[in-house]
C-alpha cells in the first residue's frame, strides 16, 4: 500500500517462491538468536514455520566456541542487566552459558578529568560482562535442543546466506526474500534483526533518525597488572574528548571501550599494542593537558611515547595526594588482535512496525556503548515482541498485520526513546571543556552523588530495575 520496492518486481516472482513461512528473521546477532530461541520455547508460537537467515558463517564459529572456547576473551563484550539475564534464563539459553567467561560486578567508579567530581553507582548485581559470542552460542545451543524436541516443525537456521533482495507480493503484499543461495521465501511476517544498516528497515521505508557523535569507540581486551587483587569494579573516566571505560572480566581481565574524536582515533590506530597499552594507562590518570601533549608525541614521535608516559605516570603515582584506590589498576597486556573501532551513533527508527514488518535491536535503535544499553534494549524488544505475537496468535489475528503488531510498538518505542535520551544527555554533559558547563557538570555530579534518590533513579535506568 505505502511502499516499496527495493528493486523492481522480479518477473515470474511466484513460480520461483520455494517456501512460504509464518516468520522470517534476518540476522543471527544477539537479537535475532534470542528471538528465534524465544519463539521456539514459547508453547504458543513454537509450531509456527520460522526461518532465521544470517549472512555470515555463524554455525561453525558458534559450535567451535561452544566446544573449544578460545583462550582469550573476545573483543566484543557487552554488559547485560539482571533483567536481560532473567530473560535469557526464561527462554532457556542460560543453561548453555560459559560461566567462567563472564563477570558480574556491582560497582562503577565514575570520575572526570577536570574537576575530580566522582560518582559511584552501587547496586546489587548491576551488570554482567559477557562476550557477544557467548550469548549467541548459548542461544544457538538452546535452539538446537528445542529443535530436537519438536522435530516435526524445526526452526530453520540458514547461515552463510545473504538476503540479496526483498520485494512484495503484488497480490497479498507479503514480503518475498531472494537469498544468495537462489531460493525465495515468502513470509507472513518479516522481522529485521539485521543490525544498524538494516535492509529490512530500508525495504519498509522506515526512516531512522539520529546523529553520529563524531566519535569512534575503540575496544580491546586487556589484562590488569596482577600485583593487586581488587573486587570487580567498572571504571569510567569522562574526558572532554570522550569516555574511557574499563569493564571487568574474570581473572583480572578487562574490556576497554574508549571513545575519541576521529583525529585521536587515527593516531591511536597507528600505535602498536605496547604503545596503545601505555596510552590507556595515561588516559586513565593524567590531566587533559598532558594527554593532549601525548597525542602529539604519539602522532609525530611515537618512539618516544612509552618513555614519556612512564615518566609522567611515575610522578603521578608518587604524588601523595593521588590515592591509587581512586584509579583503576594499570593495564599490563593487550590481547593480540583484540583492538577494533566502531563509530558511535545514536538513532531511533520512526516506527518499529509496518504491515508485515517488525524491527528489533540495533535495526530499530542504536546507542553509544557508554551505558552499555544497546544489547539490553534489544533483549527488552525481543521479550515484548514475543509477548505481542503470543497474544495476537491467541486472538486469531494475522500476526503479520500492523494492528497485531501495534502493542509491541507502543510498548517499546517510548522506553527506548527515554533511554536514548538519557545516554545522549550523559554524553553531552561530559564531552565539553567549556568551563561554566564543566562547573555545572561537576556540580551536577556532586549533587547526584549526594542525593541518593537521583542516583537511584539513574542506577535503575541503567539496570532496568523496578
Amino acid at each position, binding site marked *: 500500500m505505502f511502499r516499496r520496492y527495493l528493486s523492481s518486481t522480479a518477473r515470474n516472482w511466484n513460480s520461483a517462491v520455494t517456501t*512460504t513461512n509464518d516468520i522470517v528473521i534476518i540476522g543471527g546477532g544477539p537479537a535475532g538468536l534470542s528471538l528465534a530461541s524465544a519463539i521456539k520455547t514459547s*508453547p*504458543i508460537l513454537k509450531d509456527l514455520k520460522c526461518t532465521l537467515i544470517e549472512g555470515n558463517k555463524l554455525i561453525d564459529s558458534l559450535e567451535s566456541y561452544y566446544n573449544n572456547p578460545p583462550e582469550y576473551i573476545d573483543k566484543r563484550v557487552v554488559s547485560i542487566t539482571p533483567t536481560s539475564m532473567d530473560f535469557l534464563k526464561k527462554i532457556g539459553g542460560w543453561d548453555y552459558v560459559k560461566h567462567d567467561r563472564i563477570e558480574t560486578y556491582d560497582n562503577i567508579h565514575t570520575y572526570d578529568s577536570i574537576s575530580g567530581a566522582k560518582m559511584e553507582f552501587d547496586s546489587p548485581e548491576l551488570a554482567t560482562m559477557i562476550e557477544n559470542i557467548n550469548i549467541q552460542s548459548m542461544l544457538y545451543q538452546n535452539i538446537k535442543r528445542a529443535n530436537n524436541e519438536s522435530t516435526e516443525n524445526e526452526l530453520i537456521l540458514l547461515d552463510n546466506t545473504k538476503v540479496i533482495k526483498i520485494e512484495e507480493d503484488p*497480490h*497479498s*503484499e507479503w514480503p518475498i526474500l531472494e537469498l544468495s543461495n537462489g531460493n525465495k521465501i515468502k513470509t*507472513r511476517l518479516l522481522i529485521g534483526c539485521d543490525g544498524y544498516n538494516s535492509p529490512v528497515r530500508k525495504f519498509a521505508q522506515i526512516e531512522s533518525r539520529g546523529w553520529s557523535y563524531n566519535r569512534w569507540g575503540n575496544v580491546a581486551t586487556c589484562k590488569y597488572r596482577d600485583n593487586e587483587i581488587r573486587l570487580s569494579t567498572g571504571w569510567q573516566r569522562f574526558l572532554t574528548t570522550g569516555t574511557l571505560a574499563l569493564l571487568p572480566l574474570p581473572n583480572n581481565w578487562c574490556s576497554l571501550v574508549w571513545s575519541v574524536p576521529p583525529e585521536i582515533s587515527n593516531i591511536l590506530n597507528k600505535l602498536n599494542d605496547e604503545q596503545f597499552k601505555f596510552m590507556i594507562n595515561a588516559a586513565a590518570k593524567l590531566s587533559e593537558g598532558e594527554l593532549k601533549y601525548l597525542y602529539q608525541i604519539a602522532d609525530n614521535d611515537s618512539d618516544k611515547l612509552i618513555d614519556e608516559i612512564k615518566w609522567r605516570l611515575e610522578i603521578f603515582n608518587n604524588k601523595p595526594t593521588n590515592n591509587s584506590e581512586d584509579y583503576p589498576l594499570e593495564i599490563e597486556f593487550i590481547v593480540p588482535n583484540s583492538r577494533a573501532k566502531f563509530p558511535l551513533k545514536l538513532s531511533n527508527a520512526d516506527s518499529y512496525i509496518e504491515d508485515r514488518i517488525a524491527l528489533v535491536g540495533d535495526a530499530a535503535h542504536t546507542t553509544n556503548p557508554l551505558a552499555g544499553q544497546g544489547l539490553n534494549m534489544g533483549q527488552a524488544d525481543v521479550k515484548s515482541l514475543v509477548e505481542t505475537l503470543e497474544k495476537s*496468535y*491467541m*486472538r*486469531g*489475528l*494475522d500476526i503479520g*498485520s*500492523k*494492528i497485531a503488531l501495534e502493542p509491541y510498538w507502543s510498548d517499546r518505542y517510548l522506553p527506548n526513546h527515554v533511554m536514548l535520551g538519557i545516554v545522549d544527555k550523559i554524553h553531552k554533559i561530559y564531552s565539553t571543556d567549556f568551563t561554566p558547563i564543566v562547573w555545572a557538570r561537576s556540580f551536577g555530579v556532586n549533587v547526584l552523588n549526594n542525593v541518593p534518590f537521583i542516583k537511584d533513579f539513574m542506577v535503575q535506568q541503567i539496570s532496568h530495575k523496578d
Partner: protein
Amino acid sequence: MFRRFSTVSRHFNAGKSNFTSITQSEKEHFQQLASTWWDSHGSQRILHKMNILRMDFISDNVRSHIKVNADAETDDEKLFIPGWNHENILPKEISNQINKELDDATWNMYKEMKLQCLDIGCGGGLLSESLARLPNVEKVTGIDMTPEVIEVANQHKLLDPMLSNKLEYKLTSLDDIPNSNKYDIVTCMEMLEHVDYPAIVLDKALSHVKPGGYFFLSTINRDLVSWFTTIFMGEHILKIVPLGTHTFSKYIKESEIRAFVNTLKNEFEIIDSKGCAYLPAVGWFYTPSSNIGNYMMALKRKEVVEPVVLVKEEAK
C-alpha cells in the same frame, strides 16, 4: 416508542424466513461500508480494535471451561490442582511450576478442541477470520445477507493461505441454515441492533448451538450513554463511526436478553456478561457494568436439557 424485546417471540413461527432477514435500509448501509471494511487504520479502526477484545472474551470463556482432569482415568493421570491461594503458601518456584503445568495442560487441551463455528452477520469477516486462525477451531462458516460484504470477505480471505481450508462464507439468511447444522460456537456480533426481530434471530441462532457449546453476542444497550457515545459522539462529533451505522430504537438492553435467556434456563445459562467502551487513545476495555453502553454476553448450552419447570407466563 421503543420496541419491546418480546420474550413471547420465541413462540413465533420460525419457519417464516422474513423475520430473520435483513432490511433494505441496513443492506444499503453496509453495501457502502464494504470497500473500507479492512481499513484497520482508517474508518473501520474501532471495529478492528473491538475485535481484539471480543476475541479475548471468547477465548477466555472457552478456556475457563476446560476441565483439565476430565479425561484422567486414575488419580495418577490427574494434574494436581492446588487451592486458590497456593501462590501465597507455596514457594514461588513451585507455584510457578504448578501454574505452568496447568497452563500447558489447558493449552494442550484447548489446541485439540477442533471447534465448528457459525458467525451470523459476519460482514467483511473480522471475527470469522480471527476464529478461523485459532488453533482450536476446525471450521468457520460466516453468513451475511449483504452481497457486497460477503464479496469483500471472500476477497480478503484469499490473502491468507491458512484460511483457505478453515473458512467459508455464504450469502444466506439464518433461516436457510438447515436445522440439523449444529456448531460448538455460534456468534452474533454487532448484528442484533441491526435487525427488526432480534428475539427471533436470537432464538434461531441458539437452536444451532450443540449441547455443551457456546453462543456469543455483542451489541449495545438502549440508554442515554449509548446514544451519546455511539450516535452523537461517534457518528456526529468525532466521526469515528460511519454515519448512519446505528438506529437508536433498535438497541437492546442487556436485561432484555437476560430475561429472554431466562425463559430457556433449562437449556442455556449466561456464563459471562461484560460492558465495554472505547477511548481513542486507549482502545476497548471492559467497564464495570453491562447495563450501560456496549456489552458482550456468553451463553453456554447445557450438556443435557434439564427437566422443564413449568412457569406459567400469564401467572407472572
